């Protein structure tokens, strides 16, 4: 099993339909950001970007596993926890 998508299908999420808990504050900063560390750092691939087009960096917040690492590498990322009861639920420890 190497594919992140396979990993994600094993996880249990209660998606929060009303509240996006991970946001990019300013997309214009992303356009200037050369390394885009968010794309590789996030363990669940929340941040995606189409290399060939000048598209915004997408935030697939519903697959976030709430490690909180992204907020430490970029001030342009606004992270808070999803609403109580929502988000990822781990079972196996």
């Amino acid at each position, binding site marked *: *099993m*190497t594919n*992140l*998508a*396979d*990993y*994600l*299908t*094993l*996880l249990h999420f*209660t*998606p929060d339909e*009303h*509240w*996006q808990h991970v*946001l*990019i504050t300013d*997309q214009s900063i992303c356009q200037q950001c050369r*390394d885009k*560390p968010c794309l*590789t*750092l996030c*363990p*669940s691939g929340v941040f995606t970007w189409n290399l060939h087009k000048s598209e*915004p960096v*997408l*935030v*697939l*917040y*519903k*697959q976030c*596993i*709430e*490690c*909180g*690492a992204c907020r*430490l*590498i970029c001030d342009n990322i*606004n992270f*808070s*926890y*999803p*609403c*109580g*009861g929502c*988000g*990822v*639920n*781990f*079972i*196996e*420890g």
Partner: protein
Amino acid sequence: MLRHWYECKKPVKISKKPLTNPTEPIKKYDAIVVGAGPAGATAAYFMAKSGLDVLLLERGPYPGAKNCGGASLIAEHTHKLFPNFWDECECERIVTQQAYWLMTEDSILSSSFQSMKLAAAPFNRFTVKRRNLYKWLCDKAMNAGATLLLNHQVDDVIFEDSQAIGVNMAPQLNCRFLADIIVLADGANSLLAEQAGLVPQVSPQDLSLYVKETIALPAQVIEDRFNLPPGYGSIIGLVGYPTAGFNGTGSIHTFKESININVGMPVADFAKSGIKPYELLDRIKKHPLIKPLLAGGVTLEYGSSVIPEGGYHAIPELVHPGLLIVGDAASLVNGTHGFNLSMWSGFFASQAAYQAKISRDFSKKKLSLYQTLLNESFVIQDLKANAKMAGLQQRVPYLFNLYSQLANETAYHMSKVYTMPKRAKRVFIFKKITSIQPLTKIASDVWKVLKVIP
């Protein structure tokens, strides 16, 4: 299942705080604990036990829902707080084997200790599933009289001047709770104290990001492959190869019918390296000597979490007027051991809370009993003793990886039979090793290590 999530193509702008007036609280508690992990649940238990009216708030739908990785529990420290806890808390395996594997891409140099002396009470370590550990502690807190509210996310701490007096719940709950003492036990990625300006943001160098994979294997297969008697378990620390040249660590924990592989390194190093965290798991699983251990296993769960690894110097100010910070939120982790420090910090906080309550004094000065108890205990003493180790890894970033390679190279030539006399073999090995890292450099690194070993 995932497809519809990808439909949220455009980032949605949702205002951060819907404007609502929280309804007035119905009652005031003696203490509110935020976070039902080992630190929070232990604090709640001991406070409730001493007669305080305690509210324990947890954002997950069940205790442990938001936590993953590891894990093993040191028996002695836990036993002192919760005598014979192994009769109550569902543990996975009694650990009778502890090993370290220094790895390169095709070899493992292992040091391992295995003894049935570790199999009798008071034991040494147990592997545990977080759900069982967290549930057990929460049940204890509730049985002692604490109120546990799940699905309750705290948004921020309420202050009157600088005195903490309560917490606001997330907007959709539209409520708040008041108390004389607030205990923040919200874990490694602690947002509350930071938002309130009580502690600085943790540095990405001091926080390590870990990924884990749980793989199901029949109990007997685990016992055969890890050479364990039925019911007993092993913990293996993995050094070198697993973190691809960066200073981090990996581990294998054996459970009843599954194993956990964990691997991680500082957030800053992930950002620098461009390595995707889950790629590290894949590398480990493909290692020629690990692969056979996992053959036939079925992946059950993937996960990720952070550990504060800044050590003693990263501990922020923990006592504030009406507020105490415990556990991971307080950076109280030594190596990868956090449970015991968390529980004990929760216990010390409960002692300070009790004294504050009976004297009706919730000032910083009164509550600083917590800090005093921490300082006198193994928690701070051990962290202090290891303080320089944390700095060393930053000064010699190649430490784990390079020396793991050197050790394996040496072991390889030692175990290989050559057609040369012994003395010549020693010279040959010496030359091999010093061609990888010059002798003066080795000497200087050894000196750096020796200087910090307590």
